[in-house]
């Protein structure tokens, strides 16, 4: 018991160091880039909490991050790399919108449920394809998931800007979905909606699956040591394929709830970055579903901060990418973690 508690403090310390480094980078780059650094820093760090609208929208943007964080965690737990988050999120949103547009007359609850379900299934199949290739022919899932995702993004772009484009507005987007498909807004005037509850349920569900069930036990063992798992009679091929299904399904749900809850149509490139951020969220959370929520909050905060700094001051939103890059650089460093492990023992 003592051992495992030590372990988690060590991990938390490592994460905090990384996040602190990221904060330092934000501040330093703002000083370099901004003519009014202090007000820019104010807008970056305080802006997201300035009013109900900003706060609600920030919390709303946590939701897709929770889903992708869970999605990537499921793959990581099984030692699979799903780099196709971007495409899976985009596809999820696109499919959800398509279902809503194809059958606009379904009653709300059924319609919402159906479009979420179809989106999740499609996402699962997309990521599952990479898992299948890996299981069947040992094709590197890291590369195939990324490539398939990119191919999908362009294909979906074609549909959104071509046959499914809404000619009535100049947005590159599909037509608006019928109103009974909209997820209930709960914090006006912001876009925060009941999808936040779905996300929390997904977290609980994931935690239960991973740590309480036989499926999760076998999945985690296959990820930690596949030879051991195989030796013990576990069908490891199954745990190359299934985690990718989970992963794709959660990623697709991230896109679907964005469309049904926030944008109400599928906008070209709306998934921008959510897939990659999911990887960072999963890493900060150390693939633990319970920790995905604070990690996603942190990420949404950076994004919202950069956005507020862009609107109110003189820096561009991509400053967030630099912060994220710093996190990606440091978050897996074993040297940083070991330095804490050493101190914990002394």
């Amino acid at each position: 018991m003592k051992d495992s508690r030590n372990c988690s403090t060590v991990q938390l310390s490592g994460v905090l160091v990384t996040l602190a480094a990221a904060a330092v980078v934000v501040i330093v780059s703002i000083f370099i880039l901004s003519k009014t650094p202090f007000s820019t820093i104010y807008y970056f760090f305080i802006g997201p909490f300035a009013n109900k609208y900003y706060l609600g929208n920030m919390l709303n943007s946590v939701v897709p991050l929770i889903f992708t964080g869970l999605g990537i965690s499921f793959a990581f737990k099984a030692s699979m790399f799903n780099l196709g988050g971007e495409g899976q999120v985009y596809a999820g949103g696109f499919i959800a919108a398509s279902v809503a547009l194809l059958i606009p007359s379904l009653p709300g609850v059924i319609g919402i449920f159906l479009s979420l379900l179809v989106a999740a299934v499609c996402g699962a199949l997309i990521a599952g394809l990479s898992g299948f290739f890996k299981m069947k022919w040992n094709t590197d899932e890291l590369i195939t998931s990324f490539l398939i995702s990119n191919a999908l993004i362009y294909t979906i772009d074609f549909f959104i800007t071509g046959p499914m484009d809404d000619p009535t507005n100049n947005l590159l987007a599909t037509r608006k979905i019928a109103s009974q498909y909209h997820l209930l807004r709960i914090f006006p005037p912001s876009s925060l909606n009941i999808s936040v509850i779905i996300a929390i349920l997904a977290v609980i569900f994931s935690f239960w699956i991973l740590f309480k069930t036989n499926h999760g036990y076998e999945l985690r063992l296959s990820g930690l040591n596949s030879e051991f798992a195989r030796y013990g009679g576990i069908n490891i091929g199954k745990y190359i394929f299934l985690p990718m299904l989970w992963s794709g399904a959660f990623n697709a749900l991230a896109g679907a709830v964005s469309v049904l809850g926030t944008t109400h149509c599928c906008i070209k490139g709306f998934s921008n970055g959510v897939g990659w951020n999911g990887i960072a969220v999963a890493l900060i959370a150390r693939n633990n579903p319970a920790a995905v929520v604070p990690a996603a909050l942190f990420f949404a905060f950076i994004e919202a901060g950069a956005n507020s700094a862009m609107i109110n001051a003189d820096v561009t939103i991509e400053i967030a990418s630099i912060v994220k890059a710093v996190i990606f650089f440091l978050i897996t460093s074993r040297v940083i973690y070991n330095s804490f492990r050493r101190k914990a023992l002394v």
Partner: protein
Amino acid sequence: MSNTGFSFPVIHDAIDIMTPFLLAGIGGLVTELSGMLNIALEGLILLGAFFSVIFASITGSLFLGLLFGVITTMFIAFIFGAITIYLKANEFITAIAVNLLATGLTAVISFHFFGTKGNLVFDNFARLPVFDLPALDSIPIIGDIFLGHNIIVYAGWLLVFVFWFVLYKTPYGLRLRGVGLNFKAMSALGLNPKKYRLEAIVISGFTCALAGASLSLNIGAYVPNISSGRGWIALVVIYLGGRTPLGILIASFIFALAESFSNYAQGFINIPADFILAFPYIITVVALVLVSAIKKRQQKIS
């Protein structure tokens, strides 16, 4: 350009198109042989393209732009390698960091100095010089296919040879491959394998910078996402090329030919631009899956 037939311009263009694949591919090969999968090629190409064009416009000199662009990219590759190797971070995650940094940094700098995140077009420096030998121009096939490319194209061919020599004919190459084959054996000899891996990553920064520069300096402009997946295709080219310089040369030519052909086909059949963009990814996945399926099949048949 001569107009002797339909296929020559296609091949001629393919030779231009293959250059970034080839350059990023051989750089990636060096890291691959040192025992690391380098998925940061894409980001490094983008950084090379951006910084070489920016520095060329600042200095007004094509050569200085290329030089500083390459140095900057190698420096970022160095940071990437140092963090991965000496802070023992996961190489895939740090590589994603490079790719993120590339899009973020280029946009931030572009916005800060030029006030836009869109295309940056410059005309205060020369274009990449094109190599032409009038004497050879009249030779039918050679003149049509091998002449009239910019100098980075030829530099690429030269580098393939140089890399082949260094990797397989020098003590340095022997040690570098040794690191990839058995890391512990090298450290038991006190040969500091980490140093070789770091150098390999910096070398990949060098070739990727050239690959990027060949894209941006050629048109004298920087377009966001100008690398458009070439780093990923380069990765696949390494595998399909059997992890040898010659194989990479051939594989990148085949990819380039496919792309060049689809560009031409667009003139006849109206394919939406998005599908053209998706095409290299699709064909790459198909190629990857086929190769691994064939490999698996061979393993089964005894």
